[in-house]
């Protein structure tokens, strides 16, 4: 398998599309023949990061690089940034507004889930500029 690169745009505040990019990526990984448990890990992690871009930022872009050894996904937004990353990573911490809580979001479990399901996770964020999350999942 050659290196495969995939790109997705994520719209802001569009819950009708939320989860679409991670769903598409999941299908592509399945078609490429990756193991179901690896596909599930990638799908969960990317879904959480995608939803965060919809809820907390103004949408953004997702770029995935797939090789037989490793799946790397970069999710970049131009949202407000995360003031305290350590706090944001805590289970249960959420600034989700009431209108999205009523949809089932806001448990404060998204970022901890990403950590749990990836081998490497890096958050690069600047207030007023945006947030870039880089995820790596190895195929072992």
């Amino acid at each position, binding site marked *: 398998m050659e290196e495969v690169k995939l790109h997705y745009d994520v719209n802001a505040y569009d819950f009708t599309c939320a*989860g679409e990019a991670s769903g598409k990526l999941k299908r592509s990984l399945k078609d490429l023949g990756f193991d179901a448990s690896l596909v599930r890990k990638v*799908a969960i992690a990317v879904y959480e990061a995608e939803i965060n871009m919809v809820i907390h930022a103004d949408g953004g872009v997702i770029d995935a690089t797939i090789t037989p050894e490793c799946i790397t996904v970069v999710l970049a937004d131009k949202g407000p940034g995360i003031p305290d990353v350590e706090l944001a990573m805590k289970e249960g911490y959420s600034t989700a507004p009431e209108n999205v809580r009523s949809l089932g979001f806001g*448990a404060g*479990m998204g970022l901890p889930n990403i950590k749990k399901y990836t081998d490497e996770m890096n958050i690069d964020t600047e207030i007023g500029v945006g947030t870039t999350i880089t995820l790596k999942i190895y195929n072992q």
Partner: protein
Amino acid sequence: MDVKELAEKLELKVLCGKNLEREISGCYCGDLLSWVMSRAQEGDVWLTVMGNINSVGVAVLADVACIVLTENAALDEDALKRAEQNDVIILQTEKNSYQMAAAISKMI
């Protein structure tokens, strides 16, 4: 046991799903999506009152066997559309999640 048998025995209303022959391996209850996302197992029956489009997204990604909307929770129209596109089975019952889970645990 598959979803078809579950739906028949527990008299669940089928809101979405053409092929109900999907094996069931367990059950998970919850309404907070990122909680469900990481805890529900592949093949679980997912009991929830969340009938919006995001539930369908979670069901697809977590690979649950089906969604059961308890307490007759409503299914949004756009959620139904997304479920049809993604072959997600959605059932409905007037029972609450506790009653449903108790009944399922006797069957699997």
